[in-house]
C-alpha cells in the first residue's frame, strides 16, 4: 500500500468488480470446457468410433464450428482479464520470485505455477485450436495422424500437463478467492485439487498413448 500523499482522488466505480467477475466466470467456463474436452478426446481409449460419434454430434449441431471459435474468444478474453494480475515487468517478476523462494509456501508456489503455465497455455493452446479448427471435422484418425508426428507428440506431452496444472490450480483458487473453501475445508479441498490433477493427467497421458498406438488407415 502506497504511503505517499494522495495526488488525486480515484473516482469510485465498478470497473474492477466487473473485471473480477468476468475473470472468474470466463475461468470457470474454460475449466468446464476442459473437462468436457477431456471426455471427448479420452473416449478414444474406449474406441475411436466412440470419439468419432461424439465429434460428429458436435459437428452436426454446429457446436464445433461455432463453439470452437467462441471458446477461442473466451480463451483470449480470459487471458486479457487475468493478465491484470500477472507480473509482466521485470521488477514484479523478480519480486514475486524472491517472495516465493523466501516463503516456501505451497499456495504461493501454486500461484507462480499458474502464472507460468498461463503463458505456455496461451501460446500452445492457441496453436492447438488454430490447427484443429482449420481441419474440421475432428476425427480420431486425423488426431492420431497428427500426434504420431514427433514434433506434435512432444508438443502435446508438454501442453497436457501445462493445461491440467493451470485448470486444477485455477479451479481451486476460484473457490478460495470467492470463499467457497473456508479455512476448515481447505485441507480437504487441497487434497481434492491434487486428486483432480492426478486423475486428469492419468486420463490425458493414457489418451496420448492411445493416439500414438492407433493404427492409421
Amino acid at each position, binding site marked *: 500500500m502506497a*504511503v505517499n500523499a494522495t495526488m488525486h482522488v480515484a473516482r469510485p466505480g465498478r470497473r474492477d468488480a466487473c473485471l473480477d467477475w468476468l475473470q472468474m466466470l470466463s475461468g470457470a467456463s474454460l475449466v468446464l470446457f476442459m473437462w468436457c474436452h477431456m471426455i471427448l478426446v479420452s473416449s478414444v481409449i474406449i474406441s475411436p468410433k466412440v470419439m468419432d460419434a461424439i465429434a460428429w454430434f458436435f459437428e452436426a449441431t454446429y457446436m464445433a464450428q461455432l463453439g470452437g471459435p467462441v471458446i477461442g474468444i473466451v480463451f483470449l478474453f480470459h487471458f486479457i482479464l487475468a493478465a491484470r494480475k500477472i507480473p509482466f515487468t521485470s521488477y514484479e517478476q523478480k519480486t514475486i520470485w524472491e517472495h*516465493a523462494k*523466501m516463503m516456501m509456501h505451497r499456495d504461493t508456489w501454486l500461484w507462480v505455477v499458474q502464472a507460468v503455465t498461463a503463458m505456455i497455455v496461451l501460446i500452445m493452446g492457441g496453436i492447438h485450436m488454430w490447427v484443429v479448427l482449420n481441419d474440421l471435422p475432428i476425427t480420431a484418425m486425423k488426431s492420431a495422424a497428427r500426434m504420431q508426428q514427433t514434433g506434435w507428440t512432444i508438443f502435446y506431452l508438454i501442453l497436457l500437463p501445462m493445461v491440467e496444472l493451470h485448470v486444477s490450480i485455477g479451479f481451486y483458487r476460484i473457490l478460495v478467492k470467492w470463499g467457497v473453501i473456508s479455512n476448515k475445508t481447505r485441507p480437504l479441498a487441497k487434497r481434492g485439487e491434487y486428486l483432480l490433477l492426478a486423475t486428469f493427467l492419468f486420463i490425458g497421458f493414457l489418451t496420448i498413448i492411445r493416439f500414438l498406438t492407433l493404427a492409421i488407415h
Partner: protein
Amino acid sequence: MGRKLQFEIFRFNPQDPLSVPRMQTYFLEETDKMTLYIALNRLREEQDPSLIFDFCCRAGICGACAMVINGRPGLACQTQTKDQPAKIILHPLPVFKLIGDLSVDTGVWFREMYNKTESWIHTNKVIDPHQQEERMENEVAEQIYELERCIECGCCIAACGTARMRDDFMGAAALNRIARFMVDPRDERSEDDFFEVIGTDAGIFGCMGLLGCEDVCPKQLPLQNQLGYLRRKMGITAVKQLVPALGKIKLDKLKIGKFIPGGDK
C-alpha cells in the same frame, strides 16, 4: 547442554552512509524454552550492542518484534528456537520502511491504512457521555472481538505476494479492518460506502488468494474466510448497483453472506 545455534542476521543501517547491507553470523548456545526474543536480547547484550530490533511486550500482544524467520514472517517472541533448525536466518519484514537491521516502521503504513479504510465508527447519532453505552448482542460483540484481535504486526502484509508486487494493495490487515466495521451495528456505513473503500483492485479485488496472510498470522485470525466473504459481498454489491432490481435480495438469506469468524459456524 543445548544446541549451538547459528544466527544469520541481516545488518544494514540506512542512517549510516558507510553501512552496507550484509548478513552477519552469530553463535549462541540454546537454553531451555528459548525464544528468538530471548536469543536476540542475549546477542545484543553479550555480543553486539549495535544490533537493531524491536520488542515491547514479549507476549505476542504488541506485534513489534515481527520479522522474517527462516523465510516466514512471524513474531520473535512467539517463536521458540527448539522449533527451528540450528541455523536461523533473520530478515526484516519486506514492504515496510527499514529503520535498521531487523527493525521496520509499520506505524506509517498502518496510519495510512486507517486513513484509507476510515477506521472509525461512522455514525450520525449524538452520543451522550453521561448515558450508559448502547448494548449489543453478545454474539455480535464476539464477532467484532474476533476480528479486533489484530495486533498490526504487519506479518500478513509481508507474506502477501500482491502487496509485495503492488504498493497500492491494501492487504489483509486493512480488509480485515473493514470486515470488523461491517459487523459493528454502531457503524452506519452502507454496503455502497464500504464498496467505495475496498471495491477495487487496490482492495478486495486485488487479492489473488495466495493465502500467505492466513498461514502466517500470529493471532490465527480467520483472514481467508474474511477475504472470501468480502469478495462475495462486494461482488454482489456491484451487481446490485448495476441491476437495481436485485437490490432487494438480502445477502444473509442466501446463506452466502454470513460471517464466519474462526471458521465454519
